[in-house]
């Protein structure tokens, strides 16, 4: 990769062929009169530091934070509405909604009975720890709350940005391609739980569930998988149980840390 001659070397390929070529220029030599500073700093250092602050705030207040990620149209918001309706009498639930434009989703979440803050990322393709930190200031979730962060619908960029959450939860609906775990491996590698959504539609589709799950486990052998339908309620109890187990753990950790 070289900025002098401009030749490429990236991952982008045309018909599977890279477009790079070797060249003899060497930019590693230090010119006289200059000094070299070794940095070894991650490009994500800024985000990661802010994510650590969010995580610390969650830990101190026994909050379970989940980062929900998926393609657009996987049914994230409907799933979230149904989750809130079932959970709100047992557990305080608050929501951060991420979208490029509009506050439609936050309006839907509030109508379902949970406090919500909408973040509009404008041209941005993901939420970052800084935006979430500010959203937390206005939400100020109660101790022991469950915080659901609905990320921008995008299976690529949100994978890299830690928001301080306990888990990334990836939602894949059966109306999508069963090979999505292979096409977007970073996201499936980063997630601890995969929700296979819209399973009520399986009789009408040619979607090979076993193949899809095998792909997901090939990317991430430790990933947990639950089958759900936000529409019919199928599998929702298992999902709620998973959330409540996470919340109990968050509260236990807080007590341990406080004592």
């Amino acid at each position, binding site marked *: 990769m070289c900025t002098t001659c401009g030749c490429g070397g*990236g991952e982008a390929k045309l018909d599977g062929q890279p477009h790079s070529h070797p060249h003899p220029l060497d930019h590693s030599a230090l010119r006289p009169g200059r*000094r070299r500073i070794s940095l070894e700093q*991650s*490009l994500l250092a800024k985000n990661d530091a802010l994510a650590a602050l969010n995580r610390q705030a969650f830990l101190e207040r026994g909050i379970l934070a989940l980062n929900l990620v998926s393609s657009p149209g996987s049914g994230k918001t409907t799933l979230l509405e149904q989750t809130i309706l079932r959970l709100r009498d047992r557990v305080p639930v608050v929501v951060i909604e991420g979208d490029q434009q509009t506050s439609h989703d936050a309006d839907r979440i509030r109508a379902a009975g949970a406090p919500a803050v909408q973040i509009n990322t404008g041209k941005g393709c993901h939420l970052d720890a800084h935006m979430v930190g500010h959203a937390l200031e206005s939400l100020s979730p109660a101790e022991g709350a469950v915080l659901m962060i609905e990320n921008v619908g995008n299976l690529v960029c949100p*994978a890299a940005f830690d928001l301080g959450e306990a888990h990334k939860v990836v939602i894949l609906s059966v109306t999508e391609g069963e090979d999505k775990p292979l096409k977007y491996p970073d996201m499936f590698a980063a997630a601890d739980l995969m929700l296979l959504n819209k399973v009520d539609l399986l009789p009408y589709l040619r979607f090979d569930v076993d193949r899809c799950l095998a792909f997901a486990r090939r990317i991430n052998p430790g990933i947990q998988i639950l089958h759900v339908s936000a529409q019919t309620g199928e599998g929702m109890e298992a999902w709620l149980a998973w959330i409540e187990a996470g919340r109990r753990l968050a509260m236990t950790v807080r007590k341990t840390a406080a004592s």
Partner: protein
Amino acid sequence: MHELSLMEGMVQGIQEEALRRGFTRVHQVRLEVGRLAGVEVEALRFAFGPTTEGTVLEGALLEILELPGQGLCQACGQTVEVEARFDLCPVCGEGFVALTSGTEMRVKDLDVD
């Protein structure tokens, strides 16, 4: 296009570094980016110009060193190179490969005065 925000984060970090270490101009910045980092180096290069305008990095040369994906095969135990995160071991053809490198994305060093 999260490369744009990665670059913005980098520029912010280097500006802070400039204040701390007392340099006013960066001539060259070298990044190390793993092949499995989920980052498109062409997009990083594209974002570099606009995000560095009016900063200590304006006009600097950007060099990106790509690091190979490497890992330990869970079946045969060998250290192997992989092209993609989900590749099976290229030696035995059977095992999952637990990555040991290739997901890095960091600023290695800066040439400054």
